[in-house]
């Protein structure tokens, strides 16, 4: 193919966070020639930011725990919108995946008898999160990274994929990207591709996500003809930093609450007791006395309301702040200082201690933190088959945050790291098997050229339209119109604004040359972000109910009619179209789990 750099592989994994690394490891050990392509350096992906832990019903702390309890917690946390089969596989396989990490060198915190310790987290009935202090994500990514490097996987770093290639039959046969360093293009010819690109957080103004979270995989799949589902289900994590402004949105781990931290308003009131929804009333403590006893006696007492699922806590904080009971910088207080000894706080939450000390000049062992909701995770994503992670495009697989279905309308903390491992492995395996049983179809030169020409077009524009300014406008639009609380009129306004932004985005002009040019990279990332923002907004308009991470002021309650519906967004005639797709129904033996314990 002319002088264009091309690499040939059986399987190309895009994204080197937890899911991508796990997929690549599985693909390689299944016998497929495998490449791992990532936008940053290896080991820097957003997975490093995960703090709390990996949820897995190992039963090391509470022998009563098992996969059925975990499955039930996950479904209820997701407001029953989850793909039941994914939630089942996830709950069943997570323990095995955690023990496997230990075999690969991970050092989890231990129980007194030397097993893997598990901690409490919101929405989980039992202490279930295997963890390493508050830097579990780093442990996970480093362990997988070292495993992948030890196996000799070919890693292509700092390479941004611009488009997937699709053959005449609509199957994917490669991807075109460029090296960030040189700006030169590169083609990966592949029989199968695994998307593991993470989330879309950078579309909002206040987010816990890193710069890479621009929804690349969601957009690549959409453009290649795949279905996305439930893109309106976006999680706002209840506790992000609110001050200083530059740190706004940075995550404060849920582990603070799991370890005894409580939320208070300006009057010093533990306000979460006022926000216990009937759905969770049976399992939530309604007095401070009961809540405080729960930390040491989970069998006889119910859990504190601070540990309700994230969507519930985020909405409560939002209401407190809007009602004028917030903290000085527009959040609420998260207090662990008055509840646990300083030494214990430093030992159990070292990164949090560090983060507040260095960025906000706050000592969390003596003072309360100020926190508020921050855009954290997208539950929606590429529609996949539960067992194989196969998308609706032949040869294309997706795992981790980019895939939809597993978490329903709201994700429980700790279920992301386990999701990465379980479905990263399944995607890698299925992609390798697919590749080994299908012939290679070489990408055509014209397909490649149309991508490279498009990518270079920004250098020729002289509109003076600056990518950074456009990004800011996009973030403000999504923050103010498609945020935690939504309403039809604002969503429709957002849709119109997004159309204007897309028009401006097509004319963005880029200064400088192709070598390591962040302005150019942003112009291309903006295409992905805009595509995702459209899908989220259209899904949000269409889902006329409130469920999990999707809250409509004009439809404030869940509607049973929508519980069985996945909101599908896909390209149709160049436009994003929304359709309702009936969700697969749960088999009777699993449905029973919800009846007996209601």
């Amino acid at each position: 193919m002319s002088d264009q750099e091309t690499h040939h592989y059986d399987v190309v994994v895009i994204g080197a966070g937890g899911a991508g690394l796990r997929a690549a490891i599985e693909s390689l050990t299944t016998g497929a020639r495998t490449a791992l392509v990532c936008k940053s350096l290896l080991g820097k992906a957003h997975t490093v930011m995960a703090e709390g832990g990996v949820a897995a019903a190992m039963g090391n702390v509470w022998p009563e725990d098992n996969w059925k309890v975990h499955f039930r917690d996950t479904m209820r946390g997701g407001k029953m919108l989850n793909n039941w089969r994914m939630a089942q596989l996830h709950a069943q396989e997570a323990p095995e995946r955690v023990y496997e990490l230990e075999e690969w060198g991970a050092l989890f915190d231990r129980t007194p008898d030397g097993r893997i310790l598990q901690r409490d987290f919101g929405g989980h009935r039992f202490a279930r999160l295997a963890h390493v202090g508050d830097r579990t994500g780093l442990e996970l990514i480093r362990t997988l990274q070292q495993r992948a490097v030890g196996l000799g996987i070919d890693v292509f770093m700092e390479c941004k994929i611009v488009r997937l290639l699709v053959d005449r039959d609509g199957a994917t046969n490669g991807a075109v990207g460029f090296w960030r360093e040189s700006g030169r293009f590169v083609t990966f010819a592949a029989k199968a591709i695994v998307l593991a690109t993470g989330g879309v957080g950078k579309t909002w103004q206040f987010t816990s996500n890193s710069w890479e979270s621009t929804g690349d995989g969601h957009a690549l799949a959409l453009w290649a003809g795949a279905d996305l589902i439930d893109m309106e289900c976006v999680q706002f994590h209840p506790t992000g930093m609110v001050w200083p402004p530059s740190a706004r949105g940075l995550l404060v781990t849920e582990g603070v609450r799991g370890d005894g931290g409580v939320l208070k308003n300006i009057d010093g009131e533990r306000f979460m007791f006022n926000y216990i929804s009937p759905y969770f009333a049976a399992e939530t403590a309604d007095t401070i006395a009961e809540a405080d006893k729960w930390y040491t006696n989970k069998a006889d007492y119910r859990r504190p309301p601070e540990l309700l699922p994230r969507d519930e806590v985020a909405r409560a904080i939002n209401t407190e702040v809007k009602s004028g009971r917030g903290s000085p910088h527009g959040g609420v207080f998260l207090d662990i200082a008055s509840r646990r000894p300083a030494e214990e706080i430093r030992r159990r939450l070292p990164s949090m201690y560090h983060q507040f000390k260095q960025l906000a000049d706050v000592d969390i062992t003596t003072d309360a933190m100020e926190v508020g909701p921050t855009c954290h995770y997208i539950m929606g994503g590429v529609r996949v088959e539960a067992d194989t992670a196969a998308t609706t495009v032949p040869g294309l697989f997706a795992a981790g945050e980019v895939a939809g279905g597993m978490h329903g309308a709201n994700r429980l903390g700790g279920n992301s790291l386990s999701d990465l491992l379980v479905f990263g492995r399944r995607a890698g395996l299925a992609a390798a098997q697919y590749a080994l049983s299908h012939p290679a179809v070489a990408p055509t030169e014209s397909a490649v050229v149309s991508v490279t020409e498009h990518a270079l077009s920004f250098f020729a524009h002289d509109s003076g339209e600056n990518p950074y300014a456009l990004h800011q406008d996009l973030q403000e639009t999504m923050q103010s119109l498609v945020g935690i609380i939504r309403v039809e009129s604002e969503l429709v306004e957002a849709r119109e604004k997004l159309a204007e932004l897309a028009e401006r985005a097509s004319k963005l002009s880029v200064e400088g040359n192709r070598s390591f040019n962040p302005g150019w990279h942003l112009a291309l990332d903006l295409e992905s972000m805009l595509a995702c923002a459209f899908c989220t907004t259209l899904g949000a308009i269409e889902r006329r109910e409130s469920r999990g991470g999707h809250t409509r002021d004009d439809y404030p309650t869940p509607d049973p009619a929508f519980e069985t519906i996945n909101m599908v967004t896909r390209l149709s005639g160049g436009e994003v179209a929304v359709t309702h797709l009936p969700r697969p129904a749960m088999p009777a033996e699993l449905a029973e789990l919800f009846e007996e314990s209601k």
Partner: protein
Amino acid sequence: MPEEREIVMKLWRGDAGGGAFETYKLPAQEGEVVLDVVHRIQATKAPDLAVRWNCKAGKCGSCSAEINGRPRLMCMTRMSSLPIGEITVSPMRGFPIMRDLVTDVSYNFEVAKQIPSFTPAPKPPGGYRMSQVDIDRGQEFHKCIECFLCQNVCHVIRDHEDNKRVYAGPRFFVRLAELEMHPLDTLDRRAYISEAMGIGLCNITKCCTEVCPEDIHITDNAIIPLKERVVDARYDPVAWLGRKLLGRPAPLSAVQAARYTGAASSAARSPSARAVPASPETASSTGLPAD
């Protein structure tokens, strides 16, 4: 709000062919870190300014640079912690320049490939048991965010490009120490560490420990114990290779083999062969102001 202050930031702009500091002036904002200011310059004055970052929370180790000559993470350096006046930000000096603040750190990824992997004992029925005290030290090493600031300041490689062939550097001594002290690991890497990884070249100046943003006691907890462990070990490449082949799926790569040959023929392995001061003053020779 404090009174309006102006920031004067000098950023190194250029590429492998050369470059110079450029001065940018912009109004100060409350609570900013250096990376925020760099981003504002990028958004308003220099859209093609190259800089690496990911997490903006001190967790990914991407944003390493030299701020007023001192190697640090840009995202964890508050503007208010720096002396009033001009601030300079330059790329890490220990690695080749790619563009502006971005350097070519591929050396580190090459070394990482050569580290003999974790090789656990077979899993007993009922799974592995390890007590917390036995893994505390390992967990300290696992805090490493691979910012490579320690690699950047280590004079063995900073001042002697050639040594990169024969010396793993502090980050990888931390990695090797973590493997050596892992309660489940069975591989004996001692001879390999002293021969191929060149630990003898380290003369314990502690510059690496001083810059580690994760406060890992690189010298005291990793390098010195490793030096003590390897003192009697002899490196028999054939036996080592044999053990590796038996214990692990992947054979020694060509790079590894070449590296070993390079190491074995290098006379520069002995620390006594070079005149490097072992005193803390070495810090100034690396461009590090004393703390």
